[in-house]
């Protein structure tokens, strides 16, 4: 099982590494633009948020956004393509337990999220001095975020029947959730109603915890945030495993 897992994850890492111009390079460009426009040009007018300079304040959000996007797109694209070109059959005819298949694909998403996250962090460090208050809170939040969105991407890929289905969710669901989850602002500045609405968005808890890891300030309790993310991740893992085992849209 270990060899099978290693094979899946090696294949995944090689896949996104081969196309680094499409997978790793664009987030670095996007990050630089965000920092230039939101941080550099507009940040001076905004001043501070939660007592932190706006240019620094948006850094955790920008890094986490790339982690979310890349973890999601890695699993959704990889698994959908494997379905599309039937190469998923290579795994299905082999004695690989379903949980190993799932773990392999999710690990691929997490690794890409980590690689891109580190690249973005290095890029950001060239513009702004970045210090991390708690490496453990930062890593735990990163890991939960990457796993959660890799699982979400996997479920999307299971149901996807065309390339349109692969892009619809990131464009119409993921992107609004990301921007409305406090990526560039603290939800404390919103009216009470929208603050309450934001608390139904899991990305809010991710960003809030990630910011806690970076600056030691947050809007909600870390334990609450982690509990929310663990429950959602666990639920998605059960759904993804069930769909894979049943062979939904693969073995029917």
């Amino acid at each position, binding site marked *: *099982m270990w*060899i*099978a897992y*290693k*094979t*899946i994850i*090696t*294949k995944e890492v090689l*896949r996104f590494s*081969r196309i680094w111009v499409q997978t790793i390079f664009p987030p670095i460009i996007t990050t630089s633009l965000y920092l230039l426009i939101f941080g550099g040009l507009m940040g001076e007018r905004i001043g501070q948020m939660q007592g932190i300079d706006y240019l620094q304040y948006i850094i955790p959000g920008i890094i986490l956004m790339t982690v979310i996007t890349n973890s999601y797109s890695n699993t959704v694209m990889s698994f959908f*393509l*494997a379905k599309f*070109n*039937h*190469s998923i*059959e*290579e*795994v*299905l*005819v*082999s*004695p*690989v*337990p379903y949980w190993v298949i799932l773990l392999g694909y999710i690990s691929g998403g997490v690794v890409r999220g980590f690689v891109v996250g580190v690249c973005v962090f290095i890029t950001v460090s060239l513009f702004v001095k970045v210090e991390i208050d708690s490496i453990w809170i930062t890593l735990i939040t990163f890991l939960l975020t990457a796993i959660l969105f890799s699982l979400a991407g996997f479920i999307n890929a299971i149901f996807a029947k065309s390339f349109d289905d692969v892009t619809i969710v990131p464009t119409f669901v993921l992107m609004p959730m990301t921007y409305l989850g406090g990526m560039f602002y603290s939800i404390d500045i919103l009216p009470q109603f929208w603050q309450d609405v934001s608390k139904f968005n899991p990305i809010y808890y991710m960003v809030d915890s990630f910011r806690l890891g970076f600056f030691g300030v947050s809007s909600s309790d870390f334990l609450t945030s982690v509990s929310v993310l663990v429950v959602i991740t666990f639920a998605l893992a059960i759904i993804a495993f069930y769909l894979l085992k*049943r*062979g939904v849209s693969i*073995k*029917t």
Partner: protein
Amino acid sequence: MQVALSIQGLQKTYANNTEALKSINLQVDEGDFFALLGGNGAGKTTAIGIVCGLLNKTAGNVCVLGLDQDTHGNDIKRLIGLMPQEFNFDPFEPIEEILINQAGYHGISRSASRAQAEILLKRMQLWDKRFDIAKSLSGGMKRRLMLARALIHQPKILILDEPTAGVDVKIRHSIWAYLKEINRDGMTIILTTHYLEEAESLCRNIAILNEGEVVEQTSMKKLLSKVTHQIIILESTSTLPEYIKEDGFECERLDDYSLQVVLGSDINITDVLQNLAKQNVSVDHVRSAQNRLETLFLHLTQKQQSEQS
């Protein structure tokens, strides 16, 4: 002799209500070279897909070398190598990687699988292409790659779904020779093909599927002994007469130089040639118009269709 594959009451109805398999029963003995024939949509690929774990069955039971698929699904996958009909590999992956990864899915380490990959790629005449991506291979090379991949974990049963489609004659014969060799060494081979002469020359036992049902399962010898008539073409370098007297055989003048003759079980080719010689018809060349198995195949599948209608 142990039963390699036993299928009992296997049914498959797809989500769109297409009944691909209507409770089929099949048995393949260990060491056999078995042909599974049928027209397009007969249910061959569906049956193979279920046996290999690519499709969920609707009902029925599949046993491989005594192991029940419902309880030993992954153990069964270790015993089977599948070469599917459609190309099903990542087109951007180098071909040696495809083999090594397949071995990895079976729990074989990269170092251990490298040697086996080399043997198979050399045998399939793909060794020089090992660093090329699969997309760059020709159709025939892709088929050979899939055969090598099916054998990388050294299975006991090899299932081949149209193995030589799109392969040139020379390579096809080398694949046949290789399949005969591994079958002699004890590997059970189950073959589906559209080339009926391929099934006739390779397989010892046969099942014919038609519209999701097994219409015949017997030995190749027994099946071929059922051939009651054979169609041959006689060719002459001189112009054939307008009228040819049929004496114990049926014939049809196809053009000025060729004649189609239907041989029944009570007349042989020598009698026909002697008869034609008496009519001053000289025959320079004789060839079979239809493969013997093809004749039976069409007879059996058409018979079932007419019974149903």
